[in-house]
């Protein structure tokens, strides 16, 4: 009561921007990623006056801000908060918003807008960010009255972080953020159109339990829904109780310990043979929090053809979207796993299946040919894994290096793996590492990036310089857009159209110009000498690691092929 009364007294001389700042404090926001500009001047003034309330991170491009917020959200498991100005500021955020939508990352993005009176007149730095972001947000708002602002901020955080998480955009016209506020504001909200189902239907849980007790070849597919729900513990109990092999999606890595004997690794286009064959042959597929993305399923005709499919998802629209599902369970993953764990544990008749899965895991390991003179990229990732004892937070862009990181860095804990899965955004990894590091200052944070992707957002080295953030940038430098090159080699008869980039900056000098230690490594021997220290110290680093250009990611499911048609499973 007292607090409310004092808010009312104070707000008599406050602006909409102050209301926004107060609302952010109320939400417990401690880190903001933003870039100022004309339409957000009142907001930046309020942030200035509220000094000490937040850590405001100034990237050097709005895209850097939003990817950093995504990395922060992924590691901290809470909403990332972004501020951008109107027009180009807002449109520069679009890639990150779409990325967060695809990967269900909770973000609350505030954009400035021109004053209400000139909206629709093509005013300076005006863009229809509501129209632009409607298809790529969970929801978006344009604030029309100052009284609504606190309510909208509350709703935005609620929508972004509950149910299936996602990005929410709040567009604030400049006249609202600068308006002096004198009336009562609205705090309470009610969203009758948004009531996510969090608890599973007990009948469906019983159905799944029954199917499980009868299964001879069960497999669990773990998606990032488990990580969002914080259900790793429950998952471990469930897997331990029944001894079921686990296959992970790209984004689900870390939800179940990657180095565990029941983990078959990642499934899908560049997954392991053991994982894909388990998906192909299983008679019961328990999907928890994954969305049957096409990169996982391959040709749907050959996806788990003889399996009964159970699918736990908080988003009912994902169930049955790509794969017919006989046991649909709309629920938060944690609640569903708890309910399953409350059922009586029966031992399964599946020894044969386990032995087969383990035999495949042993007989078809991931492979590469080690070289004396050249650094093989797979080996590089393996070394990063060894030197960081598998405990680092790892971020990546998209492409070959991303697949190698997913294959060779075995995540044993959730919220350690930060990658752009659904949208596949180049330039994601480095800024995401900045956000990830800010969310977890204790851990070593390694951005494994390609030379192509890094050059899309390397301006954020300024942030490392400014803050001395100890992010380690490992450039897997093959002087090519590796995955494009690989596809051109495989499917376009080796016509390397615009995918070989011989001209490179001197990354060491580049790093040094930001007063960041830079390293050039082009032999396995040097790597073993210098990399352990680079990863162990508390300074930022840029490591230009020259790797073999001709390396391809294997094994692989060619486009249009099924899970059982992998190529390159053996050397």
């Amino acid at each position, binding site marked *: 009561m007292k607090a409310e009364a004092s808010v009312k007294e104070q707000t008599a001389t406050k602006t909409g921007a102050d209301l926004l700042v107060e609302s952010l404090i109320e939400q417990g926001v401690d880190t903001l990623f933003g870039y100022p500009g004309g339409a957000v001047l009142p907001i930046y003034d309020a942030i200035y006056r509220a000094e000490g309330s937040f850590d405001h991170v100034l990237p050097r491009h709005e895209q850097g801000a939003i990817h950093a917020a995504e990395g922060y959200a992924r590691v901290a498991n809470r909403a990332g908060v972004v501020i951008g100005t109107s027009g180009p500021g807002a449109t520069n955020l679009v890639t990150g918003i779409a990325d967060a939508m695809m990967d269900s990352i909770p973000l609350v993005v505030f954009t400035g807008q021109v004053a209400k009176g000139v909206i629709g007149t093509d005013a300076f730095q005006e863009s229809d960010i509501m129209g632009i972001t409607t298809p790529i947000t*969970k*929801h978006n708002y344009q604030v*029309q009255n100052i009284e609504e602002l606190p309510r909208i901020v509350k709703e935005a955080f609620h929508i972004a972080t509950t149910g299936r998480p996602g990005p929410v955009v709040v567009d604030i016209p400049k006249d609202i953020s600068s308006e002096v506020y004198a009336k009562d504001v609205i705090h309470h909200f009610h969203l009758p159109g*948004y009531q996510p189902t969090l608890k599973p239907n007990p009948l469906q849980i019983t159905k799944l339990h029954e199917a499980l007790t009868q299964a001879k070849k069960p497999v669990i597919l773990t998606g990032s829904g488990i990580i969002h729900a914080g259900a790793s513990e429950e998952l471990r109990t469930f897997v331990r109780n029944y001894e079921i092999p686990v296959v992970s999606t790209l984004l689900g890595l870390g939800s179940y310990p990657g180095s565990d004997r029941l983990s078959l690794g990642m499934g899908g286009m560049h997954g392991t043979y053991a994982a894909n064959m388990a998906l192909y042959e299983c008679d019961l597929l328990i999907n928890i929090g994954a969305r049957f993305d096409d990169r996982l399923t391959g040709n749907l005709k050959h996806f788990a053809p003889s399996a009964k499919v159970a699918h736990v998802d908080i*988003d*009912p*629209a994902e*169930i*049955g979207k790509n794969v017919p*599902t006989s046991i649909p369970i709309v629920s938060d993953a944690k609640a569903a796993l708890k309910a399953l764990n409350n059922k009586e544990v029966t031992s399964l008749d599946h020894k044969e299946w386990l032995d087969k899965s383990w035999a495949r895991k042993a007989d078809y390991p991931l492979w590469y040919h080690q070289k004396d003179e050249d650094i093989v990229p797979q080996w590089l990732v393996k070394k990063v894994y060894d030197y960081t004892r598998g405990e680092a937070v790892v971020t990546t862009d998209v492409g070959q290096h991303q697949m190698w990181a997913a294959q060779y860095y075995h995540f044993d804990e959730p919220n350690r793996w930060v990658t752009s899965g659904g949208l596949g955004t180049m330039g994601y990894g480095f800024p995401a590492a900045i956000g990830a590091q800010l969310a977890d200052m204790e851990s070593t944070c390694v951005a494994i990036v390609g030379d192509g992707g890094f050059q899309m957002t390397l301006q954020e080295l300024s942030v490392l310089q400014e803050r001395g953030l100890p992010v380690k940038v490992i450039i897997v430098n093959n002087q090519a857009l590796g995955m494009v090159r690989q596809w051109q080699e495989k499917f376009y008869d080796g016509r390397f159209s615009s995918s070989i980039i011989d001209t490179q900056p001197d990354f060491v000098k580049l790093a040094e110009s930001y007063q960041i230690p830079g390293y050039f490594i082009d032999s396995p021997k040097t790597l073993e000498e210098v990399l352990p220290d680079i990863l162990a110290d508390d300074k930022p680093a840029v490591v230009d690691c020259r790797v073999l250009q001709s390396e391809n990611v294997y094994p692989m499911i060619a486009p249009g092929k099924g899970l059982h048609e992998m190529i390159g499973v053996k050397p």
Partner: protein
Amino acid sequence: MKRIVTAIVHNRSGVLNRVTGLLAKRQFNIESISVGRTETEGVSKMTFVVDVEDNRKLEQLTKQLNKQIDVLKVSDITDNAIVARELALVKVISNPQIRSEIQGIIEPFRATIIDVSKESITVQVTGKSDKVDALIELLRPYGVKELARTGLTAFKRGNQPQQAEVKSYSLLN
């Protein structure tokens, strides 16, 4: 297959864009759409006629609509007992000589002439879409100068026949 889907929505700016944008993004074909206020303040009702390939696509459509924060309720009422109407205005070329002839054609359709000029008359017809289609086809030989249709609007009848079985959660079961 054609389906009639209704959505109860918050009457907020941008809601029509959200809904039609969603359907376009997921490649659903909208045959007609009508929107209007309802008995509840701040709440509107949209009626779509959509052409979907199969039940799975239809299930996606209703689920994706339901995910929208401003959408309160989605119903596929095609298989219910419903009342469905649309209104069409048809401007037909006519002179005084054939006006009575047209009058004779439209009468069984309970359509009315709502405007008359020297060279044309405007006919208003309401009913189910096939009835409207039928009348338009009959008028076409006279020369249709202008045609405007509202799209179908519909809701369930007060009395519903007893359903034999309850549909399970997933249409795919």
